[in-house]
């Protein structure tokens, strides 16, 4: 099993001292090579799932396992990227991609080779010496993906990576990410609040409730072309799947 949550509850103590339960009793599994999306209302604890998988903090109760190992801290198995590209503005693109490799004591030569390979894979060849401010938002996210892939993680966590982009760039980038991820064969957890994005990109979708987040249901997306969201986009079933998630989230009742 690539990733497993076993009865995970996470509570935070807020600044005022109150206890806030972000997620409650969350249990799910992600198989190797699978692409799973997590959708849910904002504030339901989606990013909290990601932080615990990355080992930035521990569950209050329950267990998070990556490759059957309990996550006890930051580890080499997990790479994550956020809505913000988090590129270091003072480094050029290739040095940014090398960033994750630097704590591993790899020699500079092979490290550069590795970074250049990821750069090509993410269609950024020719931009290695550019600085982040010289790139468009979409290209910066591709650089962030290259940095994430460079450490060769077993799981990639994507936290709303497309939500800061304009509609067109978003479609193109979803397509490019899907292809790159399919080619790399990486297990992926995509956090999103865009229902159709979840349908276009995933094998399976976890629907979370409002806070405290729990898994309401799992929806298996039985559509071809997982590596090509643009091809999926024209399929009539996409709307049906999105509608199904919509009903689980009981969005009609809230649209008053």
């Amino acid at each position, binding site marked *: 099993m690539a990733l497993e949550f076993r009865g995970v509850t996470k509570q935070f103590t807020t600044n005022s001292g109150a206890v806030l339960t972000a997620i409650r009793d969350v249990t799910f599994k992600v198989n190797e090579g699978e692409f799973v999306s997590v959708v849910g209302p904002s504030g339901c604890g989606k990013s909290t799932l990601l*932080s615990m998988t*990355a*080992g*930035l903090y521990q569950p209050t109760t329950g267990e998070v396992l990556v490759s059957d190992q309990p996550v006890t801290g*930051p*580890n*080499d198995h*997990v*790479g*994550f990227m*956020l809505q*913000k590209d*988090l590129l*270091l*503005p*003072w*480094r050029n693109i290739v040095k940014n991609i090398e*960033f*994750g490799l*630097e*704590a*591993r004591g790899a020699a500079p030569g092979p490290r550069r080779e590795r970074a250049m390979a990821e750069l090509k894979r993410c269609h950024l*060849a*020719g*931009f290695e010496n*550019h*600085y*982040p*401010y*010289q790139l468009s938002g979409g*290209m910066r996210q591709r650089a962030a993906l290259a940095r994430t892939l460079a*450490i060769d993680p077993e799981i990639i966590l994507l936290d709303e990576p497309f939500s800061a982009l304009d509609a067109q760039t978003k479609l193109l980038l979803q397509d490019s990410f899907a292809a790159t991820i399919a080619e790399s064969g990486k297990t992926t957890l995509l956090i999103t609040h865009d229902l159709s994005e979840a349908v276009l990109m995933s094998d399976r979708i976890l629907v979370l409730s409002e806070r405290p987040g729990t898994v309401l249901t799992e929806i298996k997306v039985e559509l071809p072309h997982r590596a090509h969201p643009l091809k999926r986009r024209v399929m009539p079933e996409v709307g049906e799947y999105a509608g199904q998630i919509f009903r689980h989230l009981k969005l009609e009742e809230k649209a008053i």
Partner: protein
Amino acid sequence: MSSATATAPAVNAAATTRPRESRAALYASLGLLALLLVAWQILPTALAVPKYIIPTLSDCLVEFGRMWTSESLLANTASTALYTILGFAIGSALGAALGYLLGMSEFWEKVLSPYILALQIAPKVAFAPLFIMWFGYNAMPKLLVTVLIVFFPVLVNVLQAMRTVDRDLVNLARAYNLSRFQIFLKVEMPSTLPNLMAGLRIASTLAVIGVTVGELVGGNTGLGFLISYGGGQANAAMVFNAIILLTVIGFLLYSALVRAETRLLHYLPKAQF
């Protein structure tokens, strides 16, 4: 690749309009300077202002020559410049070091911040007589005043910047298993560099003030000393010359910092007007 070459012409276009505009500004500045110098030469005489109130440009030039030969102007200027740079270097190194240390320890920051605030508000130049009582009439008091006056803007800027380093960036570094020191070196230090440089710029102008006050209060060397000496003799031209040279020292230090800053922070997008 195609977009890489596509961006090149845009950069060139900006590069060609830039110098033209800045050259026009430079000519205008020089024109204004010429105008001021002419007014300086003509107006005091025309308005019958006596020489010991406002000396003319030529009075000052003559006095400059006299100071050069009989007041060891070069040695005095060099001394002031030396202590300005020395005080600036020591004060900003200490300020930055403490800023980074406190920036990494929330506890000590909380413990020390009221004292830092109090010291920051206290007028540092007022310490000069005290330092003279402690250390005597030597270079120590002026150096200490300068270090003290330079210390705080650098400390406060660094501390402020350390507080606002992007938490997500630090978390990313943690997720990549970087050690605490590596995070400091590779994320926090460079993140705070713009603020550090801004602090240094402020500090460079204050450094001149620190040295001058030290020399005014208790010195027998330096431009500050020449100011109090010239003032005692009602030699306004001497005071004018010393002020101008102090300004030049401050300006050179400031310009050097601005140049260093533009080189170091080349990766920040330039504002396009």
